[in-house]
């Protein structure tokens, strides 16, 4: 999969106010060579005069990542029965599509089958696959990293433990490998050792980390510093990690709003990714609504698809709230992620 990318010609523009991860006791995982990690030496080296250049459109093409290994068929436990389409509703409910969406899908499958005369297992499965694919396909499924307004700021939000930090690590690695300069702001200043955790990922991915000066520092100030550093370093992407928060906690949700406002003083926010754990049930919809309202979510990252959960709630989220799924997490390793593709998801589910 490739995506369009605006990049400036020159890359390394040194900055001054960066805290670097080098002081951490954790070492990079064996086997992962951190090539582009910013070191103190890089930062302190003499700045080159900054040439003023027009952004040049560069297409970055990367090997396609499949998440096929991550998604498991709906029909492992219950066999698909072409004679009994009502059973399909149960199967979809068990994949967390929710009662309403499941009912609607079955009604639609029946209607289409009637029209096309599909009746065999293979035909009906094709109808179902097409239907899910169509209903989940959108033209804004790719990460919005092509507006030309650098740095592209990606704000990552979600409830506790869904995989925000891990997803950031994976994404940072991917973007670094594609030749982008990535800065990560560790704005989860709340959870114990959260900064150390993202620091490990920054190190693994070769991104520069902006960390809080003190424990419990206002996350908005860390995010703001992130923008300063990203601009000063001429970074392509700034990813902001945030603390997990439950959507019914008003104060914590307001904190996100503050982070947004502060970041927007310096940058345009390109993406607000809501991370949803594939095991999440119907509360996922409540999460999406709340985060969309406060944080203006632009995309969903669906994690932990390597488990037995199917993540069906994203179907309703995308259909009802119009928020596209953009990324998929399929494991704890740095390479275990992919860009969401509706047809792959549908084929995986229905296979």
């Amino acid at each position, binding site marked *: 999969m490739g995506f369009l990318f605006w990049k400036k010609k020159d890359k390394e523009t040194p900055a001054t106010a960066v805290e670097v991860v080098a002081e951490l006791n*954790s070492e990079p995982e064996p086997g992962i060579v951190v090539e582009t990690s910013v070191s103190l030496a890089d930062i302190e080296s003499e700045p080159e005069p900054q040439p003023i250049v027009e952004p040049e459109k560069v297409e970055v093409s990367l090997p396609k990542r499949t998440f096929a290994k991550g998604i498991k068929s709906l029909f492992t436990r219950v066999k698909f029965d072409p004679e009994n389409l009502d059973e399909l509703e149960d199967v979809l409910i*068990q994949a967390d599509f929710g009662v309403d969406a499941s009912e609607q899908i079955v009604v639609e499958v029946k209607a289409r089958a009637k029209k096309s005369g599909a009746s065999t297992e293979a035909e009906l499965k094709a109808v179902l696959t097409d239907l899910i694919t169509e209903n989940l396909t959108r033209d804004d499924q790719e990460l919005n990293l092509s507006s030309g307004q650098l740095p592209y700021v990606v704000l990552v939000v979600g409830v506790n433990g869904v995989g925000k930090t891990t997803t950031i690590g994976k994404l940072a690695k991917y973007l670094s490998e594609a030749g982008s300069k990535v800065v990560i702001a560790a704005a989860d200043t709340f959870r114990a050792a959260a900064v150390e*955790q993202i620091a490990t990922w920054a190190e693994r991915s070769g991104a520069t980390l902006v960390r809080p000066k003190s424990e419990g520092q206002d996350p908005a100030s860390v995010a703001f510093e992130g923008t300063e550093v990203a601009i000063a370093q001429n970074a392509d992407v700034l990813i902001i990690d945030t603390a997990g928060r439950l959507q019914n906690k008003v104060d914590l949700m307001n904190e996100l709003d503050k982070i947004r406002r502060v970041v927007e003083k310096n940058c345009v926010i390109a993406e607000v990714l809501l991370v949803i754990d594939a095991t999440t049930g119907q*509360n996922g919809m409540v999460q999406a609504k709340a985060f969309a309202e406060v944080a203006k979510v632009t995309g969903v990252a669906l994690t932990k698809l390597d*488990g037995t*959960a199917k993540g069906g709630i994203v179907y309703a989220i995308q259909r009802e709230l119009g928020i596209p799924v953009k990324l998929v997490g399929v494991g704890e390793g740095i390479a275990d992620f992919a860009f969401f593709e509706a047809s792959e998801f549908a084929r995986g589910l229905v296979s």
Partner: protein
Amino acid sequence: MFGNLSDRLVETFKNLRTKGKLSAADIDATLREIRRALLEADVALDVVKNFINAVRDRALGDEVNKALNPAQQVVQIVNDELVAILGGQQRKLTFAKTGPTVIMLAGLQGSGKTTLAGKLAKWLKDQGQTPVLVAADLQRPNAVNQLQVVGERAGVEVFAPEPGNGKGDPVKVSKEAIKFAQKKQFSVVIVDTAGRLGIDEELMSQARDIRKAVDPDEVLFVIDSMIGQDAVNVAKAFEDGVGITGVVLTKLDGDARGGAALSVSSVTGKPIIFASTGEGLDAFEPFYPDRMARRILDMGDILTLIEQAQKQFDEVEAAKMAEKIAKNEFTLEDFLEQMQQLKKMGSMKDLLAKLPGAGQMKNQLENFDEKEVDRTEAIIRSMTPGERHQPKVLNGSRRLRIAKGSGTTVTEVNSLVNRFEQAAKMMKTVAKGGMPQLGGQMPGMPNIGGGYVAGSKSKKNDKKKKGSKSGNPAKRAAENLGVTPTQGGSGSAFGL
């Protein structure tokens, strides 16, 4: 959208105001809505199906409750059954007889194990235990650091010989931890393990090895209350793969309805021991099945109405009874009627506790056998009306006749008469001092709308409560009664 269960039931029962025997149609209409509510609360589909069948069977067989209409009665049965499944196995933490108590935590990634480990340690420490935390999650980046911070905050020692981030063997660390705890005389060892997927054979077998190495008194399965249908698969995988002794439900301070609690209880039969309710170290409490049932059903207002209707009914009956007692008219017939009523109301203990002075009877109530009511009924039915009103006349031959007639023994008849006399005496004493209390708030009412009810909901309840309290006493009584259809209240719309 469809609104919550309360709204939909109101819709379903708009035209139904009759009281009487539960018809199959009434039951099915209610159960259809309840099925949907349970699914929307993320109870696993198979669990919902079994549950609905069980409720239908019970509802069809149940006696008619005079205080409630059919819909209410079905809802009450649903609630009772939910509480029974969620709390049927309820128990406290098991401690080792000798040596340190070992608690192993296991669960999916991100379920909240490390945070919980800290809370558990703090809680145990506050109870005078000396816990040690063991950093056996050597997988997730900086999980070891996190546990160290958490331990420091809790003021508890952390055993962390390995740096983690993929380095070190968790089985070895766990084994060493036990030796360490024994040597240093820690009373509880809490082993934090890496998050793992149920289908990850390698990691599941590692979990088994940790279990073997530490021989835990408890293996607590930690599960996020936001989890959906997959809860059953995950719970089964951990039960089969590691073997669990209890469950901890986390992130209950969110607004997920938490149907997973029911799924996990049903599938594993293991008790839910704790609820984790926030990020702070003290946000941790024992699990309350009744609150969870309410939360899953999301119909606190209807259940409150049901309770009020029932309570009001009970109060009226109790007042009648008290009057009889005061006038010395309390007879074996009344005694029987009271027992039958109590049996019908389901939870004997809670309801008996509402009677003034019943607190002292608590121990006896613990041993109360509901079949006893049937035997009591048989015995009393075998008496002549005269005997029922004047138990004093019951001599040996009368007692023998009654025993034969009721298929019981003389000993049982004797015991009943004794119990009756005791009860009459006790109630008379209580009635003298306790009468004025009858109209007011009954003691022992279960605490409702507690910590599990999400913010918006409890606000709604507060408003309702305030509304009721501000009215004049007669109006309030009528409101509480819920039996008389009032205009405009949420009760009347439901056909109560």
